[in-house]
């Protein structure tokens, strides 16, 4: 359209022109905002990666033994109730969680409830993740959604009646689950609270190191005091600072070093599921965070609980 064109002065045309300039301005604003948003997202992904490590999401959701793709699920998790198969949690829209909103993801970790309202089994340690902050959960999702998607369908769990009835999980939750974000203890130092958050909310160490009752609930009176039949039927030692039956002889340097390398004070090096925790999680954290965890764990009540299996 040229100047002097008879069309230029019609009211419709004025409106069109105004709209055009509004779009142009909005467009320019969007263009300016895009790098800032991209930067914010990149920061979230970066923070999320650290949370992902600290919370050790990858081993359960990756079928490493059969060379499965990262987070594509299918890892067999044998328990006394039967064998669970972890789901695909890549952002694949059909087989994974690609269609989930932030709220869906938060509800799964905080409450153990799926987007369709059904209840998860506690092999998914939402019982610990419930303690995570909203921000950490959001960042974690941003990171998971930045990873390659894998179109692998989920495998159904192989668990016996009546444990396969999901609605029974409502009862289980009433007995054994307390929902809610970690509340820092005001009387304790920032380092202690950081250690508690890393250990309880993210590292979910208690899920393996606390004995469970017949219904699979954690025995709160023996928190971290070891389990003779931990995950995959393996024993997990007492890691309370009890002198004779726990790690009472260790100091925070010993424990932080073990969380980095796997080496325990007697000269041995842990294997089994703990080696995986170290490789995928604690070995990748900062020294300061490992030290905070060590100090927190060594401040727990010492519980006399001997874990021994005849050789």
């Amino acid at each position: 359209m040229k100047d002097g064109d008879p069309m230029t002065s019609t009211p419709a045309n004025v409106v069109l022109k105004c709209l055009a300039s509004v779009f142009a301005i909005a467009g320019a604003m969007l263009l300016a905002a895009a790098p800032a948003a991209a930067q914010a997202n990149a920061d979230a992904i970066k923070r999320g990666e650290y949370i992902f490590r600290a919370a050790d999401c990858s081993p359960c959701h990756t079928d490493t033994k059969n060379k499965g793709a990262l987070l594509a699920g299918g890892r067999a998790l044998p328990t006394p109730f039967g064998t669970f198969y972890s789901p695909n949690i890549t952002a694949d829209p059909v087989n994974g969680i690609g269609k989930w909103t932030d709220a869906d993801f938060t509800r799964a970790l905080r409450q153990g409830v799926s987007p369709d309202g059904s209840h998860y089994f506690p092999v998914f340690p939402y019982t610990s993740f419930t303690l995570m902050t909203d921000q950490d959960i959001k960042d974690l999702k941003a990171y998971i959604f930045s990873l390659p998607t894998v179109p692998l369908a989920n495998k159904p769990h192989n668990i016996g009646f009546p444990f396969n009835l999901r609605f029974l999980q409502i009862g289980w939750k009433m007995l054994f689950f307390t929902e809610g974000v970690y509340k820092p203890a005001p009387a304790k130092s920032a380092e202690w609270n950081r250690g508690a958050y890393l250990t309880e909310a993210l590292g979910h160490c208690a899920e393996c190191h606390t004995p469970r009752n017949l219904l699979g609930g954690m025995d709160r009176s023996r928190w971290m005091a070891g389990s003779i039949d931990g995950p995959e039927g393996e024993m997990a030692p007492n890691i309370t600072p009890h002198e004779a039956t726990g790690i009472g002889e260790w100091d925070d340097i010993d424990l932080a070093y073990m969380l980095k390398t796997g080496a325990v004070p007697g000269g041995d090096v842990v294997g089994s599921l703990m080696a995986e925790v170290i490789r995928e999680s604690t070995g990748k954290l900062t020294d300061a965070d490992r030290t905070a965890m060590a100090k927190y764990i060594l401040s727990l009540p010492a519980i006399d609980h001997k874990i021994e299996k005849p050789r």
Partner: protein
Amino acid sequence: MRRSLVIGLAMGTVAVAMAGIVAEAFAQARPLDMIRYRQSAMKGNGGYLNALNAYAKGEVTLVTKDTIKAYAAALAGTSLEIPGMFPAGTDTGRTNAKPEIWQKNADFLAAAKRLGEESTKLAEVATGGNEAAMKEQIGKVAQACGGCHQPFRKPLPPASR
């Protein structure tokens, strides 16, 4: 002449068969001895590693780069022996060896090789004498131990450590 040849052949066959039986008996007799041997060798590894750890954690300052080199060489040495320490038939009894050692033997051998590589690297780093690098590499050696214990060994009760 012919007769003696036949007898000779027969005796030879018997001898070969007997030797076979003896060899078989030797390999299979007392798997417990082999289990004990490898557990002692592993305890030795634990001793060297633990001395190195004490240095890496800063608990002692006594250790020199020459001791570090010697310990690293000892660990590299046993790493070469590990494959022979797990012959077939030593998977039961007083052992914490997992059956995966024999089922996924190539992975097991690769884990032994990795210990050889990381400890050889430690010996090299120790020649340079850079303290931070030595400490870092000691951690890598420990991770090589754990890299094999994870798939191939049952957890040990702390009391037996």
